[in-house]
């Protein structure tokens, strides 16, 4: 297992890129993911946050190789995933699972819940035939469903229940790593709370690492120990969740943090309302991709792309304001922010 400063990583992602091309004659290409690196320690949950279209969902698919990356490295449990052939990849798949956003379309509509959960057990012969039913009931109980659900069809379940079935099936495979792609964004808040607390419980029990993808910073702060903020295919800031929530540095992260909805009319907070919208990834801005909406834009931002630099303690940021060689800007930024 690869290690850095004594920490062993379950998943290492380095310089991951994906360019989608469309059109047979006049090829148009979109850099959906443009050079992303992060590590997830064993048993840890890493959060990936960003607005729609930033490429976070694609990252989830890429690390599982559900979409073939254009470039980069994905190392899972010391295995170079992108070097595997089809057969070896299929053998590895049970260990890396995914939970999708829309529970209703995550389940085969013509299979009974019991069969859906039993399918992985059958496919990999994980449990001898005689014990399968018992195992299914065990899993069903673990995710908080009733034994009578075994004979139901997916359309007879609510969204929350469907997501529990998805979880049960994923757990049946005994994965070491799970991508949770907005697992609760189509659920009501009270159900969301149910599902997320269930995920926390099973993560403790089954001990897997998790890539938690969400647009909701409230969830990221509750579910993850470290996180990355994505903007137009790039990570603009990453670090421990605690540090980022206490001391976000990147202007985009700060704007995102200030836009977090707070369910209390008494809390008055200075909001940074970002102007405009995220540019299209087909035609990203030159230099720093955020410069079109950034309040601290300097000339250099339009021309040169900022590199991700380490501020210490794993806090990484891609912003010219923090470029080490230009201390003057950093100081100016600090002053502006404090005012």
């Amino acid at each position: 297992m690869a290690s850095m400063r004594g920490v062993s990583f379950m998943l290492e992602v380095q310089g991951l890129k994906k360019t989608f091309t469309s059109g047979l004659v006049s090829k148009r290409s979109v850099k959906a993911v443009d050079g992303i690196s992060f590590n997830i320690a064993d048993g840890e949950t890493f959060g990936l946050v960003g607005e729609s279209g930033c490429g976070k969902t694609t990252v989830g698919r890429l690390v599982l190789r559900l979409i073939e990356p254009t470039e980069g490295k994905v190392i899972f449990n010391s295995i170079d995933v992108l070097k595997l052939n089809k057969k070896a990849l299929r053998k590895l798949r049970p260990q890396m699972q995914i939970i999708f956003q829309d529970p209703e379309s995550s389940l085969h509509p013509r299979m009974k819940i019991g069969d859906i959960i039993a399918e992985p057990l059958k496919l990999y012969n994980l449990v001898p035939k005689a014990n399968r039913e018992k195992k299914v009931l065990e899993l069903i109980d673990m995710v908080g469903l009733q034994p009578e659900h075994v004979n139901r069809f997916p359309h007879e379940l609510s969204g929350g229940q469907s997501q529990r079935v998805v979880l049960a099936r994923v757990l049946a495979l005994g994965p070491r790593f799970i991508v949770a792609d907005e697992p609760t964004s189509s659920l009501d808040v009270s159900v969301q709370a149910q599902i997320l607390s269930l995920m926390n419980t099973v993560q403790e029990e089954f001990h897997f690492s998790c890539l938690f993808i969400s647009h909701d910073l409230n969830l990221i702060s509750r579910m993850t120990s470290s996180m990355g903020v994505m903007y137009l295919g790039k990570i603009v800031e990453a670090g421990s969740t605690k540090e980022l929530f206490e001391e976000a540095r990147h202007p985009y992260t700060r704007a995102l943090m200030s836009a977090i909805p707070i369910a209390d009319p008494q809390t008055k907070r200075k909001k940074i309302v970002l102007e405009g919208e995220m540019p299209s990834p087909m035609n990203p801005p030159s230099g720093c991709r955020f410069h079109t909406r950034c309040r601290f834009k300097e000339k250099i931002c339009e021309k040169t792309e900022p590199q991700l630099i380490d501020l210490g303690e794993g806090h990484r940021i891609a912003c010219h304001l923090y470029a080490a060689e230009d201390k003057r800007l950093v100081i100016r930024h600090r002053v502006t922010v404090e005012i």
Partner: protein
Amino acid sequence: MTLAKSRNMDEFLKNRASVAGLIVILMLITAAILADFIAPYDTDKIALKEKLKSPSWEHPMGTDQLGRDVLSRMIYGTRTTFELSILVVALTSTFGVFIGIIAGYFRGVIDEILMRLIDVLLAFPSIILALVIIGALGPGMINTIVAISLVGWLFYARVARATTLSIREKEYIEGARAMGCSDGYICLRYVLPNCLPPIIVLMTLNLGSVILSIAALGYLGLGAQPPTPEWGSMLNEGREYLRDCPWLCVFPGLMIMLAVLAFNFIGDGLRDAIDPRQMVIK
């Protein structure tokens, strides 16, 4: 039975035309199966003394120019028609669905090639294509099947492909891939069952048009050859006597119409009954 399925069934049974169609088809199928027991006469028994008799108690549908009992020939004709048409539909749907799922699931070059091939084949008027094929191979039942099937699978392939295209975007397919299922397994266990509802509707409607094509080829003398009883060829043989002995044409004609209509009614009913959420073709 699941809730949805029984509800579909209720919906279907509410449609009177479809139920009537279903009853007609069930009766015809029973007749075809039990032909040996219910046909009053031997179909090949030539009795020139009895020729061209109008309908009577003895011969409810009269007799033909060779004195054969028309009712018996109609009953055996049902068997011929149903055997042929079911065989054609089974062949074309299996092949078409197979091709359609492959094209829709794998996309890319395979899809392009298959779809262009289908476009080319669809550019020919199907009946003319069938005539050409029979012209080349010679008349007969097997060749009829070949001729009709050659074009018949195209529609299945198109519908199956369109349905597959929308199914493959569903997250349960991605989930199955993430689970490590092979492409073949996914096509068989995940794509196929979810493709079936529109295919079943198409099969029912298609049975009607296949019956028509078989009758048309029979009428042109290119399908089933005498003395095999078949509705289309019976129509053809009766044509000469249309003025004096209309029953020779009226009964086969009515029968063809009845069978086609019945299948169309069933198809319409099925289409309405199958949950619209699961109907992917719009």
